């Protein structure tokens, strides 16, 4: 568990000096660590990709609300008139 946090802090550049020393020592002693760092970096990229996809779906939901619900009709007409009544 601690190792995951250390790798995170290393990736985010927030290791304090004592932990940075510990991390350097671990890198020398544990030859599986570099590979773990790469996969963890990869995981962060995947979390971002996943999260953006979810966020875009939420934004699309907001869009659908505005362009379908009766209470937003005036807003909808204002926007559509910019494109379709030219």
């Amino acid at each position, binding site marked *: *568990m601690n190792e*995951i*946090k250390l790798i*995170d802090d290393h990736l985010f550049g927030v290791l304090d000096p004592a932990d940075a020393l510990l991390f350097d020592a671990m890198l020398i002693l544990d030859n599986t660590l570099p590979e*773990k760092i790469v*996969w*963890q970096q*990869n*995981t*962060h990229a*995947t*979390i*971002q*990709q*996943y*999260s*953006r*996809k*979810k*966020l*875009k779906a*939420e*934004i*699309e*939901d*907001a*869009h659908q*609300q*505005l362009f379908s619900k009766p209470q937003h009709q005036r*807003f909808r007409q*204002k*926007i*559509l008139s*910019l*494109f*379709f009544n*030219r």
Partner: protein
Amino acid sequence: MAQQNNFGSTPAQREQFFISLYKKAFPKVAGYVGKMGGSFDEAKDIFQDALVIYYEKLTTGSFELHVNEQAYLLGISRHLWSKKFKENVQQTDLDAAFDAIETKVQEPSSARLMHYLETAGAKCMEILKAFYYDNLPVNTIATLFGYSGTRSATVQKYKCMEKVRETIKEKSLAYEDFIE
């Protein structure tokens, strides 16, 4: 990193936040894109990308808004429009063909992996999203996901990180074999 925000922490609260931003800024953005000869769908795509950028700026806390939200979103949208316009002009058919090939090569493994994470790994992915992408305060995350306190939420974050990291490693290697 975590800070108070004005967009809320649940999907329903975020939806209200996006609806209010739409009302504030989309008329200006749509007016601009329309004036430049763009379509409704192009205005929508550009505005939605601008909202993602704005959200990420807010959640990383690396950002202080010096102008109002409406002006900021219009500024990003204008920038995205001019970028898109230039790309359209410069991109020859050959470039487009190469892009298409590259996308095809990369997609199968990542799309399959993403599908796996969205289904089997959804709970962990939601927790990791709350920590790393939404940057929510740990006590909010503990409440949202029903943990007894901040400590168990933090323990779960690292457990999930380890689990997802192993899954990505295993699946990436497996899918690589599959493609070859």
